[in-house]
């Protein structure tokens, strides 16, 4: 028989990551565990710190655009959009309306692709492998559309200061219309598989509750804050590009748990599809870019411009000293703040729930590290 006298339990440390399939990249979580219970979480980031802010100081304004692709590779169009929008606002460059429409179409398609990617990884974290294959099936369709427009599948370099680099080919519109026709049905299909699935409900309902006060206190943004009952979407609150011309809703949920964050992204996909549909129907003819010379220099000044990226507020603070290179570029991303609040909502949960909570925040590490 085993001697039980003198047995004791004690807290122990677990290193989760940097190589861990559920941290979606290279993030390390140092956990203090009491059995299965997570008592303390310390996120360690910086494993993908690529010093884009330093590089940006040594590149011309046009040369920075490809680097913005790599800040959020799941939604490159949105990062492009944030940067060019900021520079244009600083230098007061007029953008042709067709280019504005094309930007919105691409950004919203990319939002759908990004949410699909999130759905794939989130469900695989919870142990469901089928939605991964389903979500990638639809994502590939969007990748095809991007590829026929700009020749790349992930880092597009599509937008430029003053417009966009390429016009859409003639096959784009029929393909996009076809895709938008099937997408709502496909989202229903995911919902059939997941939304009322008892296993998913058990893993997500009431887990990782983020109250609206806490969300505001931690400067959360994007779907994470909208799932906590705060109606905050920069596309509506401070419309940029031509978002004020479209009719769409902002899905808001009030419980702030993992399930709400899951549901809100599915709803957003439907809303984004609506925007793309309206933008394609209303796409005006005309130029796709305003000519901006290669040796272009904006006047001295600074700008702070933010847009709604799939992971929340993405902002650029650009300071120009009158030369062709920016003096300083500070990049604020949604994941950076959203990861900060992980310890606040995930402590005193089981370690398996931590994976669900981390997945539901939709963290992309290059956005945190830059």
């Amino acid at each position, binding site marked *: 028989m085993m001697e039980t006298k003198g047995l004791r339990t004690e807290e122990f440390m677990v290193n989760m990551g940097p190589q861990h399939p559920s941290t979606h990249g290279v993030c390390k979580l140092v956990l203090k565990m009491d059995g299965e219970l997570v008592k303390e979480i310390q996120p360690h980031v910086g494993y993908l710190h690529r010093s884009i802010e330093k590089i940006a100081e040594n590149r011309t304004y046009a040369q920075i655009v*490809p680097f913005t692709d790599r800040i959020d590779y799941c939604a490159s169009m949105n990062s492009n959009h944030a940067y060019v929008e900021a520079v244009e606002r600083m230098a007061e460059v007029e953008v042709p309306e067709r280019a504005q429409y094309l930007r919105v179409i691409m950004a919203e398609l990319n939002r759908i692709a990004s949410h699909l990617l999130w759905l794939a990884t989130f469900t695989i974290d919870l142990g469901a492998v089928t939605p991964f294959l389903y979500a990638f099936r639809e994502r590939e369709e969007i990748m095809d559309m991007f590829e026929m427009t700009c020749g790349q599948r992930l880092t597009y370099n599509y937008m430029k200061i003053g417009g966009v680099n390429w016009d859409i080919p003639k096959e784009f519109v029929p393909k996009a219309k076809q895709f938008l026709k099937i997408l709502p049905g496909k989202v229903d299909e995911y919902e059939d598989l997941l939304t009322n699935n008892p296993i998913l409900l058990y893993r997500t309902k009431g887990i990782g509750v983020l109250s609206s006060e806490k969300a505001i206190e931690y400067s959360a943004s994007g779907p994470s804050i909208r799932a906590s009952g705060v109606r905050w979407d920069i596309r509506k609150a401070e419309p940029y590009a031509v978002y004020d011309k479209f009719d769409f809703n902002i899905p808001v949920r009030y419980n702030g748990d993992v399930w709400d964050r899951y549901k809100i992204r599915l709803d957003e996909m439907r809303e984004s599809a609506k925007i793309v549909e309206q933008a394609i129907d209303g796409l005006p003819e005309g130029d796709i870019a305003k000519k901006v010379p290669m040796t272009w220099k904006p006047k001295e000044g600074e700008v702070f411009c933010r847009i709604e990226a799939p992971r929340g507020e993405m902002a650029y603070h650009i300071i120009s000293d009158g030369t062709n290179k920016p003096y300083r570029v500070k990049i604020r991303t949604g994941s950076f703040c959203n990861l900060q609040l992980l310890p606040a909502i995930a402590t005193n949960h089981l370690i398996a729930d931590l994976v669900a909570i981390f997945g539901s925040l939709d963290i992309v590490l290059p956005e945190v590290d830059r």
Partner: protein
Amino acid sequence: MGVISKLPVYMEKVPGGGILTTTAEKFFNWSRASSLWYMLFGLACCAIEGLMATGASRYDFDRFGMMFRASPRQADLMIVAGTLTHKMAKRVKILYDQMSEPKYVIAMGGCANNGGPFYYDCYSVLKGVDKIIPVDVYIPGCPPRPESVLEASLKLQEKIKKQKLGEWSASTE
């Protein structure tokens, strides 16, 4: 007999059909090349293309015998997919050392090859994964298409099939 007639030419068929003869070297190489299990280990952008899109529905990595493993101890192949920073490089070296022999490395994308877009004016990126671990196949691109990852795995299989039996332990020194 259908299966046996399709077997690689270097297997000799003994009349009667029940017995095959081949060399141990060819047999080992054939089995190693046909079931390369890669480590589930994404660093940056390339991970989405190289590990996820390639593994998902359209490109279907499994048909090459490639399956992902979450643990380095069970993996034969490390696909270094993405930018390797100085901070991460130490951990990658540890992961590589934890993999059991024989082990292979594919450097995927410009960043893993030589720093790529982060070569100049960058203080935190390691300029090439081959500075810390030996690389078998390099894939150019930023990020490379899933097809090029498939091509790279075929190239790696070719390389493995040509290996000599005593060679693999020396190749990683």
